């Protein structure tokens, strides 16, 4: 039995792969950029740089900045385009206009031809027509600037950093090109420095946090006055209090009592020999009071010293993340398959780290699904209990009264129930019982009355049951009819068997024959159906939950489809597939456990 189970579990893996592939394909079908749909036009260029940056970060977070299935970007050489980029990024609008004039004069010269080819690759509409008309060159210069920005941010990404860095490092490059390189790197390396730790601090991040502060401190130390011993005592006390404090909110409150002049203390703590917790909180304090520790951007025409300083900052960043920018050959081949949208998605699913949803609130997917399950599952369990409690006895009654008026009547009733789509039933119930148009016996929306949190548990439960009554009825109607019909046939089959005839011939009472000999055997297929209800419990019902306004799984899937929330959608599909497969396996196992006549050997042979 164990071998059988393990083998079945292994077979699931390729199937799961197939599912992720199909789901991924479906989502690729969706037209347009789901992020832009969510952020509105804010993600487009020309809006404020903050929304643009938020858009880019979200894009990276949702893995949309990578190719779908195969990533060749690590093998491409971006030196030539980056040289052009560096040239244009270092120039002011006016200089670009001059350059355009120069280009139109001699488009055939080899250097100019390469430059023109690069500009044509930027997807500027009617580029040649605009180029031919000197009047519109200022507009064209603007379009080139934004075109280069989009190219760097959305297409090249971090792959363009090494060639730009080479320009920056080369002592022979002119100042203007170094400025251009810095401004290009600024766009390609999103969020270059990590100044503090995230929600879940990881000690491995420590060098990445310390390095920028160290650089900052080496320049800014002189600006901060020495801290008096008494003050030092007090700050040490506060730091200790923060280390002990669990709640993030309390920590923030303590942080707010500090002062910018205290930063010397925290910088020393961060850079000195202290515990990880102290370093972590010191970084938080510094982050709060030092808004812009390292300058990372330069305007066109900046002075040489500024450029040197900023270039130094970038060099620190580059050296910190060297393995990200210049991976070895083996890793590049690895990235070919693993650094893609699909591979990253599979990795997230396989580790059950679903990431954040694509909604505006960026809520993590896992807790979101858990919350929805906690709403759907009780309803589904109640519905299942109703189904078994009503359907099995009904089926038996029908089978016992085979072909007489009772059977006919009940069967017809079941048939009618079977033909009512659950959402039609839901709307009819709401219409007649819920909205006060006819009667106002049941609430129409949600699972709790407003202010239910203040109720005692008894009243809370009653309130819940009152709200859950109609949804549960609607959820169970259809399956109830199907299950009753099923148990009727199952019972009929059993009563035709020889052993039932034998039991009758022994002179047993009809009751004993039906309940002891018939029912026990008839229950076998019915019990095994039980496992099939697991996926329904997790999946909920889209229509019922939408109609009754229940924030369960069905509603969650509906909303994530509506919002093109692919991470949530993917997680839902994945979890559902796993649960369905497990429940099929469970059904098969239950069969063997319940019915001793069936063995695994028999099952294996039949397959």
């Amino acid at each position, binding site marked *: 039995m164990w071998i059988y189970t393990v083998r079945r579990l292994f077979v699931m893996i390729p199937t799961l792969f197939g599912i992720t592939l199909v789901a991924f394909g479906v989502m690729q079908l969706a037209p347009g950029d789901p992020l832009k749909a969510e952020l509105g036009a804010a993600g487009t260029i020309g809006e404020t740089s903050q929304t643009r940056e938020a858009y880019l970060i979200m894009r990276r977070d949702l893995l949309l900045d990578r190719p779908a299935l195969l990533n060749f970007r690590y093998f491409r050489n971006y030196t030539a385009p980056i040289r052009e980029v560096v040239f244009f990024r270092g120039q002011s609008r006016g200089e670009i206009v001059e350059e355009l004039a120069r280009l139109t004069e001699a488009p055939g010269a080899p250097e100019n031809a390469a430059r023109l080819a690069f500009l044509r690759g930027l997807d500027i509409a009617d580029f040649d027509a605009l180029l031919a008309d000197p009047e519109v060159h200022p507009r064209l210069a603007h379009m080139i600037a934004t075109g280069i920005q989009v190219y760097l941010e959305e297409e090249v990404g971090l792959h363009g950093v090494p060639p730009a860095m080479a320009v920056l490092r080369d002592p022979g490059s002119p100042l203007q090109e170094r400025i251009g390189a810095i401004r290009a790197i600024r766009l390609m390396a999103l969020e270059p420095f990590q100044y503090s730790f995230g929600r879940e601090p990881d000690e491995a991040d420590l060098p990445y946090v310390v390095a920028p502060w160290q650089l900052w401190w080496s320049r800014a130390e002189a600006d901060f006055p020495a801290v008096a011993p008494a003050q030092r005592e007090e700050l040490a006390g506060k730091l200790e209090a923060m280390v002990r404090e669990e709640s993030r909110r309390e920590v923030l409150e303590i942080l707010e009592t500090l002062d910018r002049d205290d930063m010397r203390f925290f910088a020393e703590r961060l850079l000195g020999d202290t515990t990880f917790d102290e370093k972590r909180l010191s970084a938080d304090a510094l982050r709060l009071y030092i808004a812009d520790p390292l300058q990372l951007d330069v305007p066109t025409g900046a002075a040489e010293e500024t450029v040197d300083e900023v270039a130094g900052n970038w060099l620190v960043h580059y050296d910190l993340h060297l393995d990200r920018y210049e991976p070895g050959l083996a890793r590049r081949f690895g990235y070919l398959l693993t650094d893609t949208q699909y591979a990253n998605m599979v990795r997230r699913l396989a580790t059950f780290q679903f990431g954040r949803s694509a909604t505006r609130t960026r809520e993590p997917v896992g807790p979101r699904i858990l919350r929805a399950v906690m709403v759907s599952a009780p309803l589904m369990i109640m519905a299942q209990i109703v189904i078994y409690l009503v359907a099995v006895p009904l089926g038996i009654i029908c089978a016992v009264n085979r072909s007489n008026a009772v059977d006919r009547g009940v069967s017809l009733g079941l048939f009618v129930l079977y033909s009512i789509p659950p959402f039609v039933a839901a709307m009819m119930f709401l219409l007649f019982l819920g909205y006060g148009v*006819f009667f106002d016996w049941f609430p129409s929306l949600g699972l709790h009355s407003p202010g239910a949190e203040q109720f005692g548990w008894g009243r809370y439960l009653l309130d819940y049951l009152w709200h859950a009554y109609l949804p549960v009825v609607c959820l169970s109607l259809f399956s109830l009819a199907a299950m009753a019909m099923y148990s009727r046939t199952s019972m009929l089959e059993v009563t035709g068997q020889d052993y039932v005839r034998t039991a009758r011939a022994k002179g047993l009472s009809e009751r004993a024959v039906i309940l002891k000999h018939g029912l026990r055997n008839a229950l076998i297929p019915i019990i095994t159906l039980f496992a099939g209800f697991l996926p329904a419990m997790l*999946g909920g019902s889209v*229509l019922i939950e939408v109609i009754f306004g229940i924030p369960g799984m069905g509603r969650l899937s509906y909303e994530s489809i509506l919002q093109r929330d692919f991470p949530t959608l993917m997680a839902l599909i994945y979890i*559902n597939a796993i649960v369905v497969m497990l429940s099929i396996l469970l059904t098969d196992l239950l069969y063997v456990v319940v019915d001793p006549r069936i063995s695994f050997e028999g099952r294996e042979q039949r397959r």
Partner: protein
Amino acid sequence: MNQAGESYLDIVWKQFKKNRFALAALWTLVPVVLIALFAPLIASNQPLVYFDGDAVLFPWFLSLFHPDETVDFIFNMAMLAMVPWAVVSVVLSAWWRQRNVPSRTRVLGATGLLVLMAGAMVVVFSLPGMAPRHPYAGRTFVEEEFGNPDARGFYTLVPYSPRDQERGSAFQPPLYRKPAAERERASEWFPHLLGTDDIGRDVFARMLYGTRISLTIGFLAVGIYLSIGIVLGALAGYFGGTTDILISRVIEVILLFPSFFLILTLVAMIGPSIYMIMVVIGLTGWPGIARLIRGEVLKQRANDYVTAARALGASHRRVLFRHILPNALAPALVAAPFGVASAIVVEAGLSLLGFGVRPPTPTWGILLRLGSSNYNYWWLIVVPSLAIFFTVTIFNLVGSGLRDAMDPRLRM
């Protein structure tokens, strides 16, 4: 026991007739289809015959060639084809009766003839320039008639079309009749039998034309998935080996998606239209059929008649499609009526969620969606709900009758 010369279909039909409910349902299906077919003859805002003082016009007939929906065009052509078909089939049946052709063949032949004629008309009249022009498209006869005492129009039973808007009489309950003072057209004396919707369209007319859409979606979606399912299932079962493994894996993968959820996702991503919904239901529904057929073909393949056919030199194709499939089709055919019912339900559900067919098209689900926005307009819920329930029950009854008739275990 079976008499000699009784074919499988004869046996099934004999068994089917014993189930009174199923038989009744089958007979109810006929008027449902006829209602869908003859919808314009029941409700249309175009007068059948119009006399405007000095000329007699036939706007209704011309409007049949220029409906708003392609589905309506096909149904209209089928409706028109029924006239020559009735004549031909009367002649044919007399001839057939003389030659003692069995009744089943006569029914099937006549139906086939109708489909052929309707198809021919659809093709002919959708060619550019072939359809008669409709010069009165922008003209509202009813208003003229109201102003001109000489004008006389003869209308169909219900003088409203599914797209007639009257914003003044929005959300009116059944049997609402516009007060005489507010009428702008002469034909508005006729009550809105089932009320009006959000922009004053007649719910009865919308339900009527919605029948066409529901039936089309039901039948075509099932047609699509039956064909895919039967072919793939048969291939998997017959050839086995790699083919079987591949197809079975695909079946397994698709079956693991919750079907309504998958349909919802696909429709939401691809975009809503009647055809998309049909295709999506068709593409997601086939694995169930394929699995049934595969199992059945596997069972049949082990029989001696297959070996005999192979020994006689029949090709794989012949053995599979001529010998095995006819014996393996029963479970798929039983699933068909249930499939039609569920496709109708799925379409309504999609429309209810707002992912279905877009509003100007009259469908039952859109009315339900309107009703769900405000439960005070109870007729917008009750009417489509009952229609869906009624149709689903009919198809389910036919399906269960067919199942009982085809299942040899229940045959005595």
